[in-house]
């Protein structure tokens, strides 16, 4: 990744504000996310983390103040794993999700192996546990070629080893010039610097 490309922000917001049910969740949220950065959104339950993520990825288009500027389509993984119960993990990874990606058979097998689902490629997803379904969802990170990843609680229901591997993947993505914005209640163990965005006080650190 040339150093010039790293400087251009992949995503920029201008004074984002959101009021839900008469409560102001955040206000005047202005930040820029460039390639090579990992941002973690902090905030308690109901602080508006998911609402913020949905605004950033473009699912929420009305009802908030401010502007989101995104230079390319990000990969967004939400709370729901988006894994269809009737399809096998392999088939689930074949249909395209947000952002650009490559979806050939070899890469899908490799991605499933990387998330520890070797041998489960062709069993229907409803026979998998909740954690395994979330792992199928995480496998999408290996297939994605999008530079910006928006991850909403990506470690839900994932075991410790899986979380460590996913964190390594995030580090690698950031080192390769990508950017990650994620919500998580855990302290991240990654090799790169973690930018923190706290919704409780609206502080960008």
């Amino acid at each position, binding site marked *: 990744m040339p150093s010039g490309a790293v400087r251009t922000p992949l995503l920029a917001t201008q004074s984002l504000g959101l009021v839900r049910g008469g409560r102001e969740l955040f206000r005047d949220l202005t930040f820029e996310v460039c390639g090579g950065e990992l941002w973690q959104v902090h905030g308690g339950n109901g602080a508006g983390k998911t609402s913020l993520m949905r605004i950033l990825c*473009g699912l929420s288009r*009305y009802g908030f103040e401010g502007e989101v500027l995104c230079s390319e389509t990000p990969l*967004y993984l939400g*709370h729901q794993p988006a894994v269809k119960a*009737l399809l096998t993990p392999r088939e689930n990874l074949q249909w395209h999700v947000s952002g650009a990606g490559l979806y050939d058979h070899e890469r899908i097998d490799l991605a499933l192996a990387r998330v520890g689902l070797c041998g489960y490629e062709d069993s*229907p997803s409803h026979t998998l546990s909740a954690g395994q379904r979330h792992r199928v969802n995480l496998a999408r990170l290996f297939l994605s070629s999008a530079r910006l990843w928006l991850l909403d609680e990506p470690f839900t229901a994932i075991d410790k080893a899986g979380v460590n591997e996913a964190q390594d993947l995030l580090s690698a993505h950031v080192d390769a010039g990508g950017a990650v914005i994620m919500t998580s209640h855990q302290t991240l163990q990654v090799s790169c610097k973690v930018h923190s965005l706290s919704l409780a006080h609206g502080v960008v650190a």
Partner: protein
Amino acid sequence: MRRPIEIGNPLLFFAMVVVLFPLGMGPSSDNLATVAPGILWITALLSNLLTSDAVFRSDFDDGSLEQLILAPQPLFLSVLAYIAAHWFTTGLLLALVSPLFALMLNLPVSALGTLIVSLLLGTGVLSLLGGVGAALTVGLKRGGMLISLLILPLYMPVLIFGGAAVQAAITGSPPGPYLAILGAMLSLAIALAPLAIAAGLRISIDA
């Protein structure tokens, strides 16, 4: 198809309702023949209505719909694919088995061809309109009744011309004009309904 029962259900529903009419109205074959076009069309309409609620439901529940909206493919084509799948499993199959039920209701054999063609065209419109209702109500926990109220008025023109085409074939007058109007409705619906469905899905996912 992983769940064959979902294909069978609309057909069984169609069969059951068609059987109900002779039970309620008496089995006199003259009586049945006069109302047969209406019965067949209303039954097709109801079975379409019942299944259209589920078109986007499971995808909304498991988060696939969010990904579909954000995916690089145009949403117009994606929803068209959904509706096509819905039509294949309800409209197309119903149209193909309808001659069987038509004969049960003593519909003249000469009208069977018109019945199939009118159902093929008409159920396409029904699936597209039902998709609009489904897209608007998918965010609601129990959208079943609301979807009926929303789209039944839109179903009426299809029912009028579909029934009239079969009636015309029975009386010996040319059914062509009615079928042409159904075809025009289908063309219009294919062009416009996916836009409305896409917009409805975006609204539902936003709320």
